[in-house]
């Protein structure tokens, strides 16, 4: 008896959102998407009941821009649990430990969906408990603790309840959008958060949560002589008394990432196809360069974030040995956790501009950059491969899909094995190159800085998700046009 039979009664009963029984008109889809988005923004503004406001540090830190949600709010966890759950699923699937055939077997599909949900809910608990009960991430309100039954522990339980409900809500909001709306909830929450920060990074007059103020007001104040304007300040950006100011370098990097991603979206290897029976019906199967690789990037980043979270947690519980990590203001400044911390901004490494004192020393900085690069490039490639395998985009699954649609590669026998051989020449290579390239881009963007302090990964994700959303909307509208065109031509 396999694990499937044991787990089936539980996994098949996971509550899910109803699927529309007929075609949902495009306008309705947009309405659902907008509705859920409004709800999401509302929830990011509702602070937890029982929280001591203003105290506590954000456990997600700079990762907040990709993990969405809001510090200290009901949706404190953001899409973190979904991402962590997905990592576990990817690793299990990539190592082929699941034994689920999600392409052909409906029962396995149901089990996969159930397992996915169960993992996310487990992760909501696993990340929520230490957030609330350990460390100084979500401190309980002092005044409420004195009157509330159970004291501080009772208040913590209450906060955990809210964080839990928020985490589960995010999961179901994602499902509502996936089934009734356009795109996916996860993608939408990421672009919502990053876009908000980008706009804020351009026009915010008051400092944003990350401490940055907008480029445009900052430059106006520099021109008026209100803030010190020197050539390095203007180019690299600087820490002014009223907030962090992005330089011209950040603007250039942001635009460059936009251009590179949109260009790379169109880079593809096209495999010619022709229909086996219908002569003249031809098509192409595109193997896109970064088709599969931007989303796995978030998994690599989340892995780094979880490592840092463990570090912060250990640090808050006891003082760590120097080689493991020394912390100042909640940030690692030396030791293992320092080297494992990804480069988040220009100030983390540009010692020749900001850090002439030599602390941390140059070799330490270089080692950290090297570790981050290796982690992101190798991790990007590995997770891209796992991603392609578990989402049925690998050579074998693709060959079967092409075969099922009755297409073949002209000049080859119509046989899934032959198709697979040809696809094997392209898909794994393109996936690895794409994954490594995206990793390199993400680190590069972080090193040079971006507008509003959105991370390189956040920017990459936003541009490519938006592009994909645009493609999906175009396709959707084509489908809407169809019945009308049929009417026009009788």
């Amino acid at each position, binding site marked *: 008896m396999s694990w499937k039979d044991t787990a089936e009664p539980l996994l098949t009963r996971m509550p899910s959102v109803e*699927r529309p029984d007929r075609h949902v008109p495009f306008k309705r889809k947009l309405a659902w998407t907008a509705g859920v988005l409004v709800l999401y923004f509302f929830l990011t503004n*509702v602070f937890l009941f029982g929280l001591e406001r203003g105290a506590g540090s954000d456990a997600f830190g700079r990762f907040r821009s990709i993990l969405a949600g809001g510090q200290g709010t009901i949706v404190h966890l953001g899409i973190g649990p979904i991402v962590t759950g997905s990592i576990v699923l990817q690793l299990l699937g990539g190592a082929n430990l699941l034994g689920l055939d999600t392409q052909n077997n409906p029962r396995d599909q149901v089990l996969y969906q159930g397992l*996915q949900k169960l993992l996310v809910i487990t992760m909501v608990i696993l990340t929520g408990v230490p957030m609330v009960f350990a460390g100084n991430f979500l401190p309980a309100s002092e005044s409420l603790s004195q009157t509330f039954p159970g004291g501080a522990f009772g208040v913590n339980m209450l906060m955990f309840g809210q964080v839990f409900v928020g985490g589960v*809500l995010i999961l179901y909001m994602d499902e509502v959008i996936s089934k009734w709306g356009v795109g996916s909830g996860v993608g939408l929450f990421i672009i919502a958060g990053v876009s908000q920060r980008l706009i804020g990074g351009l026009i915010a007059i008051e400092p944003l949560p990350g401490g940055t103020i907008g480029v445009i007001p900052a430059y106006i104040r520099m021109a008026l002589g209100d803030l010190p304007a020197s050539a390095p300040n203007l180019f690299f950006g600087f820490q002014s008394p009223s907030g962090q100011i992005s330089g011209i370098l950040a603007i250039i990097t942001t635009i460059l990432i936009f251009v590179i991603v949109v260009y790379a979206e169109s880079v593809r290897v096209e495999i010619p196809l022709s229909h086996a029976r219908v002569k003249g019906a031809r098509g192409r199967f595109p193997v896109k360069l970064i088709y599969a690789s931007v989303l796995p990037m978030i998994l690599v980043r989340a892995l780094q974030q979880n490592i840092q979270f463990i570090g912060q947690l250990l640090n808050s519980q006891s003082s760590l040995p120097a080689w493991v990590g020394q912390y100042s203001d909640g940030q690692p400044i030396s030791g293992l956790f320092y080297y494992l911390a990804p480069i988040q901004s220009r100030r983390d490494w540009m010692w020749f501009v900001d850090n002439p004192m030599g602390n941390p020393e140059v070799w330490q900085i270089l080692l950290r950059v090297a570790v981050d690069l290796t982690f992101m490039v190798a991790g990007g490639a590995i997770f891209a491969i796992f991603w392609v395998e578990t*989402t049925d985009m690998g050579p074998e699954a693709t060959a079967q899909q092409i075969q099922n649609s009755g297409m073949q590669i002209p000049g080859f026998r119509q046989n899934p094995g032959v198709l697979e051989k040809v696809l094997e020449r392209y898909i794994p290579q393109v996936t690895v190159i794409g994954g490594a390239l995206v990793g390199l881009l993400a680190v590069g963007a972080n090193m040079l800085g971006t507008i509003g302090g959105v991370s390189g990964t956040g920017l990459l994700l936003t541009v490519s998700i938006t592009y994909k959303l645009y493609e999906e909307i175009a396709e959707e509208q084509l489908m809407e046009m169809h019945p009308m065109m049929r009417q026009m031509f009788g």
Partner: protein
Amino acid sequence: MSSSDSGGLMSSAGLVRYFDAEDRNAITMDPRSVVAFGAMFGVLVLVLNAL
């Protein structure tokens, strides 16, 4: 082009995958109730905070 369509529904950029297959035992919810619950829960916490 039809060749890239698979049987299951693949949402764009979805970390969570949903398929067409549903189990008879599964508990299903109306999407409206998800949104309504979320909104009500938010309002409840807001009211508690304001008290």
